[in-house]
């Protein structure tokens, strides 16, 4: 299943990216992360996209206030399924296990539901926690990220993965770079020179 590629705004930069872009935001400043997240979600709602946020570090109250200040009703959008807010742990670590297959399935279902509900597009922002490295299945994180890139080819959900540079090691951050086609650096979306095509990356993993 493919769709006509269109460009979407991210909210925190003037650049537009193709729908279904898989991006990575490595941050060290919490304020910067929050601002990116809020603007990204807000713009999605303003353009009637279906949006989802998986984060342990944002509260419903913060979202409600921010959306309200910008003329968006949190309750209204939530009631018509345009907005979904869940904690990282609740989505990624169900039953204390990180299961890439289950996550990919969740994303695929999310996209399908969005389509059936008539949303013109959908976007997700998810904050990965460093605890993944100590969670069963956590060693498959990069495999998961690489497979997300493949999934999004046919199920184009615009996706931002957030990684905290203060909680992941430098070596892990470099590996994370390899599985995201786009990077957001200093608020600018760039083509990631370290990106390795998922098929090649996954083949290397298998080897």
């Amino acid at each position, binding site marked *: 299943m493919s769709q006509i590629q269109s460009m979407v705004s991210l909210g925190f930069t003037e650049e537009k990216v193709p729908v279904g872009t898989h991006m990575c935001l490595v*941050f*060290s400043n919490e304020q910067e992360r929050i601002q990116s997240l809020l603007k990204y979600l807000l713009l999605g709602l303003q353009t009637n996209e279906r949006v989802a946020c998986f984060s342990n570090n944002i509260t419903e109250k913060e979202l409600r206030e921010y959306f309200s200040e910008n003329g968006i009703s949190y309750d209204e959008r939530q009631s018509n399924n345009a907005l979904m807010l869940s904690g990282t742990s609740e989505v990624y670590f169900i039953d204390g296990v990180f299961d890439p297959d289950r996550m990919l399935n969740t994303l695929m279902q999310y996209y399908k539901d969005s389509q059936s509900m008539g949303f013109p597009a959908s976007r997700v922002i998810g904050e990965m926690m460093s605890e993944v490295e100590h969670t069963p299945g956590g060693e498959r994180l990069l495999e998961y990220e690489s497979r997300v890139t493949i999934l999004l080819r046919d199920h184009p959900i615009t996706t931002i993965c957030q990684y905290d*540079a203060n909680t992941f090691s*430098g070596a892990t951050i470099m590996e994370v770079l390899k599985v995201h086609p786009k990077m957001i650096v*200093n608020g600018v979306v760039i083509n990631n*020179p370290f990106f390795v095509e998922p098929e090649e990356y996954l083949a290397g993993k298998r080897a």
Partner: protein
Amino acid sequence: MSGIESLSEKILARIALLQSMAAMLPNMKSVLEFICQGLSDMAGITRVDYYIPDNKDSPAQKKDNSSTRISFPLKHNSILYADLVFHLADPDAFEPYKPYISNFTNMLAVIFEQKAQRELNTKLIEELEQRVRERTHELQTSKEMYEEIVQKTSDLLVTADGNGKFIFLNRVAEKIFGLPVEACVGASLLDFTHPDDYPETNEVLSNAQENHLEKTSFESRQINKKTKEITHLLWTVNFQFDNEDHIQVIHAIAHDITVRKKAEEEHQKYEQQLQQTQKLESLGILAGGIAHDFNNLMGGLYGYIDMAKEGSTDAAVTSHLEKAMNTIERARSLTQQLLTFAKGGVPVKKTGNLFPFIEETVRFVLSGSNVSCSFSVPDELWACNFDKNQIGQVIDNLVINAKQAMSSGGSLTVTAGNIVLGEKEHPLLAAGNYVKVSVKDTGGGIPKEIITKIFDPFFSTKAAGHGLGLATCFSILTRHHGSLDVESVPGKGSVFHVIIPAAQAIYPAEEQRTEQCHRGSGLFLIMDDEEVMRAILSTMLESAGYSVTSTTNGQDAINFANQCQKEGKKIEGMLFDLTVPGGLGGKAAIEQIRAMGITTPAFVASGYADDPIIINPELYGFTGSICKPFMKAELIEMLEKHMHKLEGTR
């Protein structure tokens, strides 16, 4: 192909991204891991390692003899942060990137320096914050200590402005002033000062201002607004002056000297009572001398009138004589009071219960008056050693005074109770068990200015008073080793406390006097310095059947007795005056007569009813005693009692 042409855009982009992200990673190790991994895929490179000098966590450099190594020091301002070691498979392929890598490593060195600087700054800030925390804690501790000292001291500490208005007070203020500290702020010392101390307190501030005093001290009484309790304070005050020599700030410490002041007041009271006692003793000597002589004269008058009345057949004359005797009776009462409080007033004490005797006395005095009375006496009231006549006199006086103080009516309350006094608990009384009888009236009270004089003899506020009532009461109780205290609130009434030492025995029933008659014969020797007494005694004894020989002093009496003994002339009885001014008295005379072996019944007479010889005459060689002035019937009664008994035993 030139060197520039061989450069890969992708690799350059990687280097650029690494540069952008290096600063984002939190520490040198994380950056180096990130960089080494990011550069490992470059052309001609097999591996990139890092080495941090003097860091045990730095990965050991692997020996790799199969490849060429090139090292890039990450160095800035002579500080080597790390070495990046590139293991090259193809040095030629790497060669074009060397300048980029060199620039990159230089930039990394700068980033590391910035990070190091930030870490240093963070460390310095943390140290500074720690020192601030420590210093704050020290100051807090110091402040708490200061506050503890200020608040826990028993002295009152205050700070006031130049006008004397309180700025600060410690918690002692609440106890002394009776208000919360917050309510005291803004008030001045005068707001809590006893009105009598206003002038002196005001003078302290004005005097300090006038004379530029830096330090002074004074005493004042403070009134507790809540309890009205008075606290005596000794103030030590420091004044601070401004540039214009005006008092700017006042710091003061006040020490509570209430206990000391009360002790001083007690001592003063004791001194006053001691002076009172001494004054009474002096006056007693004087009054006693006069009373003695007067009493003798009275005895003569009394006897003669008694005799005249006995011989009178004219009803009118008898009536006049009776009135004369009544008048003399009153005069006798007055001289008895004088004699009682004079030196000879030793109480004739017997052990007994004060009640119902006191109640009967009070009711008798108040009978027919418009003063109601009530009694509160516990059943277990201790017995006392007391002279019934004297204590009766005390109660008489107190109740008469109370009745006069309540001329328009009122109520008298008599309460009694057992009290146990400790050492120095009462200024005049020794430690021990006492009975306290309080007589409380609802009269006008005693003015403050005269309350210290009411026990003085001849002091009276009554036009007809002779001023002996309370003086005598005081004297009687002093001789009972007790005390008479007074409390009075002008306008509300007075209460007199009679305190008598307790005893453990029960008062025996009184003997009833029975009417006696006596007839005798033979020679009766009398001795008295007063002619009138000699005459009346002679008349009385002669009327009883005796022949009388009278002498004027003890020596003459001894001589007569000696002569009679020599001549074998029998003396049936003797009656001697106890005191003979300027001559030998009855006591010395009977001693010598008894020494001569003469056993004749001998009697002693005196106006000093409380004299030990009158109380226990047999101990001094006498057969019996009689108190002057006396009626014939009393003399006859004494003779009947002793002469017939002696005759019977002879």
